Every structure is written in C-alpha cells, then in structure tokens.
C-alpha cells in the first residue's frame, strides 16, 4: 500500500526517532515520532477505506446513441458511453477511475479516465464515444480504480467489477449497394412467393383438363366446356413462399484469427477472422431476403453440431436471426489439445487486471519453495524442451543422485567387509566408492542447480498457472480438487482457459498445430455437421428452396466429399444451392497475380495464397460439375448473385443446375 513517497517518509521518521533517542534530543525524537505516527495513521485509515471499495462503490453505465439509451449495439454505429462512479459513506482521498474499453469496440473520442475525490455526495463521471467494428458481444468489465491519499503516501489499485454485456448486431450492407430489394415488374408474383408449376390454389392458370368427379364446381371453365361440348376443369398454379436457408460456418477455423499473429506478429492483421466476413454476408443476405418478404432460416454449424432457426418472416423473426448471428460472432475458437502455455499469459494478464483482489497472497498463495522442489505438470503431451524436462524431474534427479546412489554405494562398501573378498579387490572397491559417492552426489546437485538456473521462466509460469487455476476453479464453480487437476492436466486447463477468455470476450489465438504436428482445426467433423444439417433441411423442405452455404470449404479438403454428397441430394430435390467461401482480407484474389513474398511472413503468405487458390480452383471445378455456383466473399458479387438466384426462383426460371 505504501508508495515510494510513503516509504521515504516512514524511513525518515523512524531514522529521526532512533537518532533522537540515541542522541537524547527531544526535538528530534518528537519530530521522528510525529512523522512515523502520521504515516502509520494514514496507512491504517487508507487500508481500511480501500477494502471497502468493492462493497461500497458502484458503477452505473449507460450506453446511448442519438435517440437515447440502448440495450444492444449495432456494427458500424457510433455510441456514447456514460459512466458514473458512486460510493456510500466512506471517502477516498483521490481516485483515478479508468473504464476498461471492451475488445469488441473501438474507442473514438472522449476520455476513458476521470479523477477526483470519491465519497458520499461525490460522484465521478466520464463519457466517451465508441464504435463497433465487428458483430459479436461487447463486455464492459468495469473500472480500474487507482486510489491514493491526499499526500500520495499510500496507493492502491483495484478493479471495480460491474460487468455489462451487450450484443453487437451485424449490419446489413445490401441496402447501401443499391440492389433491388422489391419486385420491379407486375408479372412477378407478390413479394415472398414464387410460382410452382404444380396444381395448387394460386391465381395463375396452369392448365385445362377434363372434368373429373369431385372437382369443385367453381373450377369448371364454363366457356371452354361449352365450346368443346364436355366439362373442362381449370388447374391453377401453386403459389408458394420462397424459402432461403443460410448455412453459416462457425467452425474453429473460421473463428480463429486469419494469418495467425504468431507468425506475422501483427496484431491488427491477426484480429481478422473469417467468421466476421461470413457474418457480414449473412446479415446482408438476411436483410435482402427479409425486405422481399422471403422466408429465411439460419443454420449455424461447427465441429460439435448445429443450431437451427426454421425459416420464417416478420420483424420478430428477423430480430431473432440477427441475435443468432450476433451470438455466432461472439464465439471464440476452441481446441482442447491446444497448449495452455500459449493462453496462460493472456489469461493471467486478464486476471491481474480484472480480479486483482482474488490474486492476493492472503487468498491465493503459492509457497515460494514449491516451485524450487516440484516441477509442474508431471506429464504433458506438449514437448517443451530440455529445460521443462529437467524442471519436471529435478526432485527425482537430486534424490537419486545425491541420496539413493550414495546410500546404495555406501551399503555396498559396508557389505564388502562381510563378503569373502581379497584385500586388493576390497581396496579397489573402496577406492571406487570413495570416488563414486561424492561424484554421484555432486552430479545430482549439479543437475538440480542447473534445472533451477534454467527453469526461472518456468517457475514464474507455474506461479501464474497456480493463481489463474485457483481463480478458474472459483469463477467457473469447479468441484473441490479441480485446482490441482488444473495444475497437472494440460488439456483440462486449456479447455477452462478458453472458456474464461471467451466468457470475458477476450480475443485469443490458438496454435494451429498440435503437439504431434497434426492440424488442430481438421475440417472433417465440421463437414459432417454441415452435411447432417443440410440433409435435415432438405428433409424438412416443403417446396423448392435456396440453400446458401456461407462456409469455409477451402480449408475442408478432407470433408469436401461429404458436403458434395448432401448438395447432390438437395439438387435432386430441385433445390438451389449457392456456396460462398470467405477469403482472407488483404490477400489478393485467387486469379490475381501476386508478387513473391519477402521474409518469413511474406513467404508464408505466399504459401497460404497458393494453397487457398488451389483449394478454390478445385472446389469450383467440383461444384461446377453439379451446376452449383461457387463465390468468394471478397468478389463483391456474392450478394447480387444470391438475389439473382432468389429472383430466378421467384420467377420459376430454370436454374443452372436444372432446378426451377
């Protein structure tokens, strides 16, 4: 709690006090005692006050746009965040409150910090503007409170947790592009319907046929019957609604950052996700189809399964779909076998900032000697080099080298006196023992000290791991004993760390390769999920539907056959299918020429470009055989192509795949 100023003042006070006593000078003793007493009283009162911050302070937050307070944000719009910090009864000398701006929003202007005294009747207010660059969820964690007394002798930093989570809804771009959202010709059916050349109850004539007993009298074409001399019946077309189902890929590859920041080290590039682009496309398609009153459904799929919103129309349904898109955008990557040591620094930084009171030694302690004697974890699937190997086995090595081997050799030496050995053999044995025992002990201790010297980083990492594990066990409500399991089980810790970071909406990047070099984001499970979801949609379809795949099929080479199978089934049932694949931002298109890359990052980009271009060429070839259009998210033609498909469906024109 004491600052440098406080320590200096205390040092001066105590020094004057003892010098005064030693030299028997009343003025000096009294001055030293007065300064010491002042600093002590300040410290005690300050410590009592700051412990009340969590209980007595409140943060009230209002997010508003030009029209007033809002409960959900919208991508691309500007909002004003207003925060008031209040405190009952107790008064803190001087407080600096800093609002933690969520990762999902961009700070545009205004100060996120405010300072002044805080207490009964004294309120700190701040206001700043934000913008939401991507859909998802924005989590306002609360405010960092830095408190100090009036003289700055004591200071304390804590975090006033007042979490507020708001959805960031995706914004549609279709209306801005000037695309036709309503019917232009009277020959077209009303919005939201299309004609099916099948007998039904529509208004357009399909055909005339002979009367059959049981036909309703109102369908009899009397004039034609009179001309032909026999009863004729009119058959009308069936007018059915246009149904569109969007299949949104929320798989791990799409959720992960594109062009991983671990390679380029560029955070701004690393923050781009394919999922964000897909969400934008889905929102635009949703807006376009909703405007033309088409029934629109959504299927969000990933490796673990799929979630479905059946096709519908209306404002409430559109809002439901938009919320589902926002929820999908807020998903973080998950890979159980990912190395937790890649996530631990981010989680520890988050914990230190948001939960400093739960990392105090009083409630979350790590004995200092523990890391010197015990290495963690005992077993791991992740190879971490010789330092980690030594660190894990340091206690075993020193026990064997400095205790067991010397003890065994000593016993062997003693036993030699009871055995029938020649004098020379006994002398040689004893000489060997005289050298071997100290050598073994020295080797054991040398290994131990080497492990300690080389494992400084690992000891610090273990301390962070212990603190974060204890925090995880409490925050996630894990059972008793989970703390030690988190310390020993890398997979368990990795899973819980990802859960923590995702719940706090902290972006993080996962390693793409597993410990055995295997690609962690394998596309096979995702392809199976997509195929199952698609077949289910085909089975539940009533009329011809438009199925839009917003999926990263480029990274799904292994599972492409499964997806093509379900597409064939859909085409056989006269549905139309469009595939839109996301393409990394900043990377030239597959047909664009690209300059050779420089450096490691450039070479890597070049390799990625080559791989993705080849994947897209293969995908386009496979799909064109089926008459299915494959588009890229960056081509700018994705939404117009979707609308054209829907218009074709509406007008019952035959599609390229032979479907109507």
């Amino acid at each position, binding site marked *: 709690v004491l600052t440098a100023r406080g320590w200096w003042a205390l040092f001066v006070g105590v020094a004057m006090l003892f010098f005064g006593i030693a030299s028997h000078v009343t003025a000096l003793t009294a001055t030293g005692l007065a300064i010491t007493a002042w600093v002590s009283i300040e410290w005690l009162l300050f410590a009592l006050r700051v412990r009340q911050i969590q209980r007595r302070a409140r943060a009230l937050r209002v997010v508003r746009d030009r029209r007033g307070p809002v409960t959900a944000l919208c991508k691309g719009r500007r909002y004003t965040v207003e925060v008031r910090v209040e405190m009952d009864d107790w008064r803190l000398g001087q407080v600096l409150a800093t609002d933690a701006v969520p990762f999902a929003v961009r700070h545009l202007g205004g100060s996120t910090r405010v300072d002044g005294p805080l207490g009964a009747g004294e309120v700190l207010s701040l206001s700043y503007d934000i913008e939401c660059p991507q859909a998802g969820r924005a989590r306002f964690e609360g405010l960092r409170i830095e408190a100090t007394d009036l003289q700055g002798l004591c200071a304390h930093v804590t975090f006033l947790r007042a979490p507020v989570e708001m959805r960031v809804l995706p914004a549609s771009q279709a209306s801005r592009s000037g695309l036709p959202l309503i019917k232009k010709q009277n020959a077209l059916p009303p919005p939201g319907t299309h004609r099916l050349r099948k007998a039904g109850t529509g208004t357009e004539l399909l055909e005339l046929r002979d009367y059959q007993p049981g036909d309703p009298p109102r369908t009899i074409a009397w004039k034609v019957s009179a001309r032909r001399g026999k009863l004729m019946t009119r058959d009308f077309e069936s007018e059915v609604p246009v149904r569109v189902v969007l299949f949104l890929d929320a798989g791990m590859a799409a959720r992960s950052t594109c062009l991983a920041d671990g390679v380029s080290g560029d955070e701004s590039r690393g923050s781009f996700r394919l999922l964000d682009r897909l969400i934008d496309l889905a929102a635009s398609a949703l807006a376009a189809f909703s405007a033309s009153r088409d029934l629109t459904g959504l299927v969000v799929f990933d490796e673990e399964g799929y979630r479905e919103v059946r096709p519908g129309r209306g404002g409430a349904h559109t809002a439901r779909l938009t919320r589902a898109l926002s929820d999908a955008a807020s998903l973080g990557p998950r890979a159980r*076998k990912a190395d937790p040591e890649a996530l631990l620094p981010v989680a520890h930084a988050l914990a230190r900032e948001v939960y400093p009171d739960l990392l105090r030694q009083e409630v979350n302690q790590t004995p200092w000697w523990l890391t010197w004697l015990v290495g963690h974890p005992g*077993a791991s699937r992740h190879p971490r080099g010789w330092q980690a190997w030594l660190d894990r086995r340091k206690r075993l090595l020193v026990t064997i080298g400095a205790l067991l081997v010397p003890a065994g050799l000593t016993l062997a030496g003693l036993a030699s006196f009871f055995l029938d050995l020649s004098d020379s053999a006994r002398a040689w044995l004893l000489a060997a023992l005289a050298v071997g025992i100290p050598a073994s002990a020295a080797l054991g201790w040398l290994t131990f000290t080497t492990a300690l010297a080389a494992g400084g980083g690992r000891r610090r990492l273990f301390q962070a791991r212990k603190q974060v594990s204890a925090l995880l066990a409490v925050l996630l409500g894990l059972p008793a004993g989970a703390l030690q399991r988190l310390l020993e089980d890398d997979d368990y810790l990795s899973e819980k760390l990802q859960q923590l970071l995702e719940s706090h909406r902290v972006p993080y990047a996962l390693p793409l390769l597993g410990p055995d070099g295997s690609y962690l984001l394998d596309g096979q499970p995702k392809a199976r999920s997509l195929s199952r979801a698609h077949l289910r949609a085909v089975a539940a379809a009533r009329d011809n539907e438009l199925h839009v795949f917003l999926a990263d099929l480029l990274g799904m080479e292994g599972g492409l056959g499964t997806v093509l199978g379900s597409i064939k089934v859909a085409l056989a049932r006269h549905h139309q299918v469009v595939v839109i694949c996301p393409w990394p931002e900043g990377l030239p298109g597959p047909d664009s020429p690209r300059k050779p890359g420089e450096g490691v990052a450039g070479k890597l980009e070049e390799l990625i470009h080559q791989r993705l271009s080849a994947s897209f060429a293969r995908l386009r070839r496979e799909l064109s055989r089926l008459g299915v259009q494959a588009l890229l998210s960056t081509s700018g033609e994705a939404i117009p192509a979707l609308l054209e498909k829907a218009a074709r469906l509406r007008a019952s024109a035959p599609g390229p795949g032979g479907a109507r």
Partner: protein
Amino acid sequence: MALWLLGEGYTEWGLVALAPGAAGLIFRWALAPPIVLFLVSAPLAMFSPYRMMRGFGAPAPRAEDLLLAASALLYLVSAYRHYSLARRAMPDDMRRREKPSDPRVKARWAVPGGRGARADRVEGSEVAWMLILVALVSLAAYVITFRIQAEAAPAELRFPEGRFSRNALDRVWRGCLVAWILAGGLAVGHAVLSVFGWLSAGKDEARLYLQDQLWSATRGEQRRIQRWMVWARLRRGGA
C-alpha cells in the same frame, strides 16, 4: 524549521536546509522533503550537547521543540500535498513497468502505462483538518517523547560499573522499547486490517481462501493422484 535552527545557533545548517526545500517546491521534486528533514536532523544528532553526556535526567520541556516537531510534520505533509496537486497524485502502477511476458499480451490488459493524474482542487476544510491533525499528532508525539525519555533501564539489567555507562544503557533500553512499540503497533494494525478484511470479504474471496486452504493441506496427495491419472490417459492415447 530554518528559523528554529537559526535560533538554536545552527546558522549554516539552517541556510543549507532552506536551499533543497525551496528547490523542491519550485521544481516539484519528490525527494526534497526527506533531504530537508535529514539536513535538519543532522546537526541535532551530531552537535547535541547531550550526545556525549554521561548521566542526566529528562530535559525540561520547551515550546521550541514542540514547534519544530509540528513544523517538520506540517512541511512534510504540505510538501507532498503540493507535489500531488502540482505534478502527480498517483504513483505508477508497478505492473505497467513489467515487460509483457508474451507478445500476445502486448496492447492488451495491464500493459498501457498511465501517468498519475493531478489532483485539481483543494477544499478549505481540508486545510483546516490538516492543521488540526498536525497539531494533535505533534502534541501527542511530544508528550510520548517525554514519557519515553523518562524511561530508564531496569536495575537488573545494569552491567558492572565501567563496562557501559548508565546513560548508554538507558538509551539502548529506550530504543528497544520504541522498537517493540512500533512492532506491536504494526502487528495490531495488521490484525485489525485482517479482521476487517475478512469481515468485508466477498463470496468469491471467501471461497478462494477455503479452496486454498484445502489445496495447501492436501497438495501432495492430490498431486500424486492427478499425475497418475494424466499419465494413464496420455498413455492410453490422450483422448
């Protein structure tokens, strides 16, 4: 304080102490108060007429001594308050100085460093309270000082005549007494804060404490169990 030194005959020291004090105020130098106090206390400790004296009683109370204690405390408090107002109220958060342990943490939590804010207002009541408190603390310190100076080492502790002077032994005794009082005060303060902390602890804090106690008590056993389980799972194929 300078006037007091001049009045006591330490003319040079009084002038020397003035210089860093004035410079500290002008240049807002945080180390100025300790230096000034050191320069004030140095002549008192070095040239005290009582320093080499063998055997004497408690000195007579003087208003000048009380004045010096009050003025030194007032100077320290007001100099630091001035520094808070004029330059920075908040010390740097030590966590901000740490180098991020991982590039992924860069530009994320706890990294952007912030300079302390300025305290931009002083209320009239604050000055009045400060003067009252300084006077009270100084007076209390002065009274306690006389009580301490009246203390003498117990007769049982006296060494044979000639080894240590009675004066020196009394001073050591007083020093020990003050050290014990300070340590006791520290312990009491810590105990008060601990009790107060537990009384105001939240649910998560209490759960964390209990969990930590359980972990501390059964750490070894749990570690062995968990290691075997992880080892067995990895050996099976690590599903």
